[in-house]
């Protein structure tokens, strides 16, 4: 334990997919005293991470959660998963790559489906990338070179508060900062991000596919036959298309405004195609605004090990990937699953009501540093150490850059990292399944 006051530089924030790595965290006697350089969400996370936490595992008895020993909780969790015919192992976006790796092995042993929160954020983005391919880059290239930045269906001032500051406003090697960059925002509301833009296109809800197609036509020099498309005047579309074609280095950052609306992966297909078209005229790139700090890492690890980035069914002894079938919302909607492991996620707060209703009908094991709505309906709850604050681990930034987080304070006594809890459950599952432990 750190017993003196210490300022720790270059701490990585573990909230959103931008994973800012320039925080200065002051720690005194093993407690976070202050944090500088982070956004409002980062500050709230670091200053309030230790509030209202469970300090022991909980297990349900007579319909209510009661404190339990760690070993009791591990045994019960292993029993639930080992006895299940088709369990879902869900979450993984707010924990380390190392935890996901163990989660995949556990899924293989229990014959279930491993899915991460991509399934309810940028799942359609990955489907689009499978179809079309992706022209992308890292943050460094954007910061040093971008002179046109488009945010489409994304409000980073609220979702990724320092994204614009780092990439659009800050000076780069070849750009003098905000004055050398144009910012375009496409959204259905005049968001706080839109208020900072040079151009704001207010699109009608569910009009993204039409507007993206209109941009493809304008970029190719085709005439737009309608005066207004998806709420945007044709002459404005042509003006922005000219801006795109004439820029030196453009990037389209898109949010779940494209994936969660009508069209879903088809919106992504056409966005990726627009960027591909633009590369015949200039340098243009595209990047999804990933939500959680390691959702990109969950995709990476799952893809390395199984060949697929999310929604991987291992129930037949080999990986099967069929979004729309092996995705967790669809599995729950069909009532196919008979147990769930939820790691570092809160599906009750993130899934539509019918999927939650189905989830509540099966035994759930939850591993989460903080109490959650899902914890309220779980059979077993493990409190865990917070990655990036109380424990370390590998994560991937939204642009695919791998980062190594480190703890700044120790976890409360008895609180273990996700990866350790998962290893212990896996060991028990192997015993129950009659397998040999490797350790």
């Amino acid at each position, binding site marked *: 334990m750190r017993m003196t006051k210490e300022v720790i530089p270059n701490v990585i924030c573990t909230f959103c997919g931008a994973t800012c790595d320039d925080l200065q965290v002051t720690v005194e006697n093993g407690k976070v005293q202050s944090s500088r350089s982070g956004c409002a969400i980062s500050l709230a996370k670091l200053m309030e991470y230790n509030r209202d936490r469970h300090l022991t595992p909980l297990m349900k008895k007579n319909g209510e959660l009661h404190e339990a020993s760690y070993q009791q909780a591990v045994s019960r969790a292993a029993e639930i998963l080992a006895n299940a015919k088709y369990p879902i192992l869900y979450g993984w976006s707010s924990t380390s790559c190392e935890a996901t790796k163990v989660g995949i092995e556990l899924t293989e042993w229990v014959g279930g489906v491993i899915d991460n929160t991509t399934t309810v954020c940028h799942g359609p983005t990955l489907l689009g990338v499978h179809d079309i391919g992706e022209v992308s880059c890292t943050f460094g290239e954007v910061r040093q070179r971008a002179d046109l930045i488009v945010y489409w269906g994304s409000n980073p001032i609220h979702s990724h508060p320092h994204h614009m500051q780092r990439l659009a406003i800050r000076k780069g090697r070849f750009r003098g900062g905000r004055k050398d960059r144009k910012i375009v925002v496409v959204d259905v509301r005049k968001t706080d991000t839109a208020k900072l833009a040079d151009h704001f296109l207010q699109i009608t809800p569910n009009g993204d596919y039409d507007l993206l197609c209109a941009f493809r036509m304008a970029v190719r020099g085709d005439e737009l036959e309608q005066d207004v498309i998806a709420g945007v005047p044709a002459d404005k579309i042509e003006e922005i298309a000219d801006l795109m074609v004439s820029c030196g280095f453009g990037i389209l950052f898109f949010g779940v405004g494209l994936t969660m609306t009508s069209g879903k992966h088809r919106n992504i297909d056409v966005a990726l195609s627009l960027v591909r078209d633009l590369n015949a005229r200039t340098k243009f790139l595209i990047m999804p605004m990933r939500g959680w700090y390691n959702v990109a890492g969950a995709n990476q690890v799952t893809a390395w090990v199984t060949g697929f980035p999310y929604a991987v069914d291992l129930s037949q002894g080999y990986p099967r990937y069929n979004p729309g079938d092996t995705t967790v919302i669809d599995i729950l909607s069909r009532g196919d699953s008979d147990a769930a492991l939820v790691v570092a996620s*809160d599906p009750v707060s993130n899934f539509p009501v019918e999927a939650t209703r189905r989830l509540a009908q099966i035994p759930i094991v939850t591993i989460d540093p903080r109490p959650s709505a899902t914890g309220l309906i779980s059979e077993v709850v493990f409190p865990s150490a917070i990655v990036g604050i109380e424990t370390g681990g590998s994560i991937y930034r939204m642009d695919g850059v791998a980062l190594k987080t480190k703890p700044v304070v120790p976890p409360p006594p008895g609180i273990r990292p996700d990866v350790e809890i998962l290893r212990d459950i896996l060991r028990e599952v192997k015993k129950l399944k009659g397998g040999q432990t490797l350790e």
Partner: protein
Amino acid sequence: MLSLRVTLLSGRSLSQARAKVSGKLSDKYARSVAICELDPDDMKSLGISPDQKIKVSTSTGSVVVRAVASSQAPHRGVAFIPYGPWANMVLSSETQGTGMPTFKGVEAEVTPAPNEEVLDLPHLVAEMTRRT
């Protein structure tokens, strides 16, 4: 009773994210997500003031939340509920074969609900998980 047809979005808001990291079972979290942001002109047409209770209904279900005058206006005809269990009450699990539910761009109706209660999280979760 007055009512308004809207296109409903759910999504991230700064206050939702800050409250979320402070604790999902806190009052602060409930206050930041059990709300619906409406265009101020739409609120006038409904005859409601900020913090008044409204019912948001879709083909999936309905939920009572408090009205908030949107800071992201103008967006006539568009209503916004931050991600969370209250928004989920009115969202469908249908993914149209993509794996992804429609969390944004959902047809909805907003009506004043002065005599109804905004459920707290435990009661809302009980309502969500009630067997039908």
